[in-house]
Each structure stands twice: as C-alpha cells, then as structure tokens.
C-alpha cells in the first residue's frame, strides 16, 4: 500500500521539520484506500466470519488509524520528536484502557 509513496528526507541539517511528503495525487490514492478499508469494515460487521470477526475489525481499525497518522498528519515525514510526543500519549492511553478493563475484569463481582 505504501510502497508507491516517496519517502523523502524528513530533516534538514538542523534536524528541523520541513515540508516533504506525498503529492496531492498520492493523498487522493490514500483516501480511496481508507474508504475501501471502511467499506470492508462495514461489510465484515454484516457477515459471519466466526472467530476472525474481532481481530479483522481491530486490524483494519489500526491500519486506518496509522495510515492517517503517518501520511495525513505527516508523522512519517516530520521530525521524529513530534511523533514520539504523540506516541507517548497514545501509549499511556492504551495503558489506561488495558489497566481499567483488566481491573474491572479481575475485581468484578
């Protein structure tokens, strides 16, 4: 999916953020890929695929999430410090989510 995209140098000599990344045409291509994934997600919610249901939906959600973050939000092409600040928050949020659910699971009833 992402092989067709250029991966230009993200930083100049100062380690500063500069504007590189996909062209408008590539952004449109990425959008159609995201739209197709959304269509597959909705289709999967209507058909019975058994035990694969949850992993497939979560997998597609994660692919969509990181496609937007990496390309539309430019993390792939910007200074890595920006991405790390975001991923720290994201990691803590996932930790909160897992900790809360685990706690209620273990201490329920």
């Amino acid at each position, binding site marked *: 999916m992402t092989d067709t995209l250029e991966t230009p140098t993200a930083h100049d000599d100062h380690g500063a953020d500069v504007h590189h990344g996909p062209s408008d045409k590539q952004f449109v291509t990425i959008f159609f890929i995201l739209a197709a994934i959304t269509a597959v997600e909705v289709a999967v919610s209507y058909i019975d695929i058994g035990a694969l249901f949850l992993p497939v939906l979560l997998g597609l959600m994660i692919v969509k999430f990181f496609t937007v973050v990496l390309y539309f939000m430019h993390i792939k092409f910007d*200074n890595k410090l920006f991405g790390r600040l975001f991923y720290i928050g994201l990691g803590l*949020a996932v930790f909160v989510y897992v900790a*809360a659910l685990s706690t209620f699971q273990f201490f329920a009833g």
Partner: protein
Amino acid sequence: MSDSLISETVKDAVQIAKDHNGDVHEHDVHAGDNHSDDHGGHHTSLGLSNTKLAMWLFLGSECLLFGGLISTYMLYRNRHSENLGPDQLWDIPFTSATSFVLLTSSLTMVLAVSAANRKDLRNTKIYLGVTALLGALFLAGQIYEFTVFYREGLGFTTSLFSSSFFTLTGFHGVHVSIGIIMLVAMIGMLSKEKVSGDEAEAVEMVGLYWHFVDIVWIIIFTLVYLIPA
C-alpha cells in the same frame, strides 16, 4: 508504555538542541525573523517549531482524554435495559455514511495544507471551506442520531450505557465543533491577512487537530458501532 521510548525522546531532544547550538551564529544573522528560515528550520532552542511541538504535545494529552472515555464506554456498554441497547438503536448504514463524510474531510484538509505549502491561498481557502462544510455535515448527522435515540427513550441518565455513550460521542462532537470554528477562523484570518507568522504552519496546525478528530472517530466507529456488545 516503555521507558525506552521516553528516554529516546529526551535523548533526541538533547541531540537536536546540541545540533542546533552549532548553528547559532548562522541563525543570529537572521535575528528578528521569528519564522522558519530557508532550510525549514526555526529559531528555537530545539530548532523546531514550538507551535508544532505544543500541538503534538496537546494531541498526545488528548489521547489520554479519549482513552479514558473509550475505556469507560467499553466497561459500561452492557449496562442497559433489554430494549434500549446498541442492537436496537444503531443504524450502521447511516453512521457509515457520516464516517465517510468525516474521512473525506480529512482528505480536503490535507489538500488545504498542501495548497498552503505551495502558497496557493485561493485553493487553501476553498479546501478549508469544504472541510468545514463536511465537518458541519458530520455534526448534523450526529445531532440527528442523538435526536433519534432520545425519541426512542435513550436519555443521558437512562443507563450507564447511555451516559458513557453520550459522553464519549458528545465529547467527540464538541471537538468537531471546535475544529469547525478553527477552520472558519483560519479562512477569515487568511482572507484578512491577519495570520501572524508562517501561514502554511498555521494551516498545518488546524490540519493536525482536524486529523486527530478523524482518528478518534476511526476508533469510536469500530469499537462502539461495529463491534457488538
């Protein structure tokens, strides 16, 4: 969350600061220019845009807010009466359509940022306007959905499920509303040339916020609507 990510981030920041110190004299030549230089660098201690750094930090903290709200919903999504749960209320085709509208707004937003980087002011304003309209359409869909649920008998205090659902999607709706205000304000400021500093960077900041609203909805759409309780 690993400690290594945090320590690597700190090391990166220190390294960037060290690299930047070597360029102090060159930057002093441009004293008085607070914006990016020809290399895309910035006159800050890190050599990065403080505005952008603050926006990413803010978005990282927003992850925690929505992480808490999503966790709460996941905990309480089964706490409802038999006839007023997700299976009876959700209209997946309708919500899929509004999700597609929000996804499309992300495309127009990224095209606005791209146009701003090319200093194409006309297309920047057009794309920002379309993004705001699509955002308003999404919001209208959410208000319609809330109204339908309310008429079905699902109020904010009806059950733990309804409280957590309305809080989560309502908070997201508030974020979309703020995003629309930011988009409209940006169009006005660009038109009146009131943007202080780098116009492309200002548009990019609005874009980052807007894409964040989109990625939160990507999670809500799957976890709340598509995966049954």
